[in-house]
């Protein structure tokens, strides 16, 4: 129930638009990296800078040597038949030097990387927990006792947050560039990542593991709230409870629950059949006799989507069992009815 209540609240706070608007890439003080907005970024950026300079040094050195040799020792012509002057053909000391030098460079790199990695993988005790569920092609962020109020992830600044990640269909990957962290969402198990936002603002979230058709639309943003703001937002969410019913509720859920990614309201079939004029239609099924699209069928297709697939569509829909209250379902059915 709380789920639906909170969901509404976001509706009330008017956060939804038809198309999920792309987040803005925040301006960064660095050339290479996006702004660093989490406590763990220090290690990554330091190692990065070191390696950039190291690479620059070696690339320039090698390029210079090549260029120098090519100009200095360039042959006049083949006809001239110059003979290269004899130089030593191998020099074990030299070989060893340039075997050892890289070793000396990479060992600290490994250690540094290892330290940073362990940090990224071990969330501090008592970190606030938020569930992130990947599904084609949307992230559902579930807050303790609050359901999924919003497309965007809302977190308070300077608070360690642990994302408990899983997927309902295929692999996804929760990637927040400004926090320099990323973790795959693997169906059938939990994975996790953590961060502690240090900057108030909005930062993009991407899906970084290929997950099919709309992989590249699985973009949303994390909203880092200033101290106090986050609580306000929560309060607002709960306060605005239950204002929507029937069609409006359905419309809002349609956008918030990710129905919109697969079902159009204008008659164009997407991954799933369009909802326009769907209600009351006789639909041919991939298996079994045609079925009339009525309340029962709609309810079934939300709770157990694979039960009856409309002919010509892939069984791609995740179940909404437990995600939708009866009230939500009624709302959605009303909404679908309204789409003549």
């Amino acid at each position: 129930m709380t789920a639906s209540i909170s969901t509404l609240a976001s509706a009330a706070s008017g956060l939804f638009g038809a198309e999920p608007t792309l987040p803005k890439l925040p301006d960064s003080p660095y050339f290479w990296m996006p702004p660093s907005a989490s406590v763990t970024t220090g290690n990554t950026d330091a190692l990065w800078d070191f390696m950039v300079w190291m690479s620059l040094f070696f690339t320039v050195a090698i390029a210079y040597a090549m260029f120098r040799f090519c100009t200095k020792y360039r042959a006049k012509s083949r006809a001239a038949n110059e003979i290269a002057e004899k130089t030593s053909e191998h020099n074990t000391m030299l070989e060893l030097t340039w075997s050892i030098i890289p070793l000396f460079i990479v060992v600290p790199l490994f250690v540094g990387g290892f330290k940073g990695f362990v940090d990224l993988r071990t969330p501090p005790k008592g970190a606030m927990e938020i569930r992130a569920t990947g599904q084609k092609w949307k992230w559902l962020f579930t807050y303790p006792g609050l359901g999924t109020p919003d497309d965007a992830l809302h977190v308070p600044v300077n608070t360690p947050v642990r994302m408990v990640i899983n997927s309902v269909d295929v692999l996804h990957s929760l990637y927040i560039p400004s926090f320099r962290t990323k973790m795959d969402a693997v169906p059938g198990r939990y994975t996790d990542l953590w961060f502690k936002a240090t900057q108030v603002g909005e930062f993009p979230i991407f899906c970084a593991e290929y997950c099919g058709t709309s992989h590249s639309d699985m973009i949303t943003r994390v909203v880092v709230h200033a101290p106090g703001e986050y609580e306000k937002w929560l309060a607002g969410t709960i306060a605005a409870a239950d204002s929507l019913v029937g069609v409006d509720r359905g419309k809002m859920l349609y956008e918030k629950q990710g129905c919109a990614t697969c079902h159009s309201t204008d008659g164009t079939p997407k991954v799933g059949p369009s909802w326009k004029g769907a209600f009351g239609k006789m639909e041919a099924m991939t298996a079994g006799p045609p079925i009339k699209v009525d309340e029962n069928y709609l309810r079934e297709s939300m709770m157990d989507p694979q039960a009856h697939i409309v002919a010509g569509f892939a069984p791609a829909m995740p179940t909404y069992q437990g995600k939708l209250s009866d009230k939500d379902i009624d709302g959605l059915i009303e909404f679908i009815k309204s789409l003549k």
Partner: protein
Amino acid sequence: MADSDKPENADKEPKSMQGSSEEQPPEPREDATAPNPKLEPTEQDEPEEAARRDAPLVADGHSGHDSHGHGLAHTMPIWMLVSVLAALMGLTILTVSVTSFDLGSQGNLVVAMVIATIKAALVVTFFMHLFWDKKFHLILFMTALLFVVLFLAMSITDRGEYQRNIDLYQSTTSTTPSK
């Protein structure tokens, strides 16, 4: 592994090549690769060609350790083959009968695998006469096993490490297969 055996070969193989080269001067090759393939063999190279071809090529049971010069390969005496088979049969009966006893949690598995490995060793050593074969073939076979072990070890270690995340998930959600 792979590189460790290289030097050993590097000086072994060429010797054999030289060896074979001394007994066959380039002439026959020239004939073999003559521009005109229809060309019949010239008289003077035929005898030695034939001589080389008809040299006794089967090694007697014992001198097969390095088959170079002794013939193509080692020949297994029958008694050895039969007794190996007997041993294998015995081990098979053993491994079947041992399953009726309970040897602790993984005990039976370990015993079964040990027996299987002994059988495998017998087959490889005698039936596949790897014992008398070139050492390099042994190295190759071992390399294969080494890589299998690497492959299994890493995958299984990792799996064991994250097993609990899966158990956690399965305990919190009902993941019975949808039939």
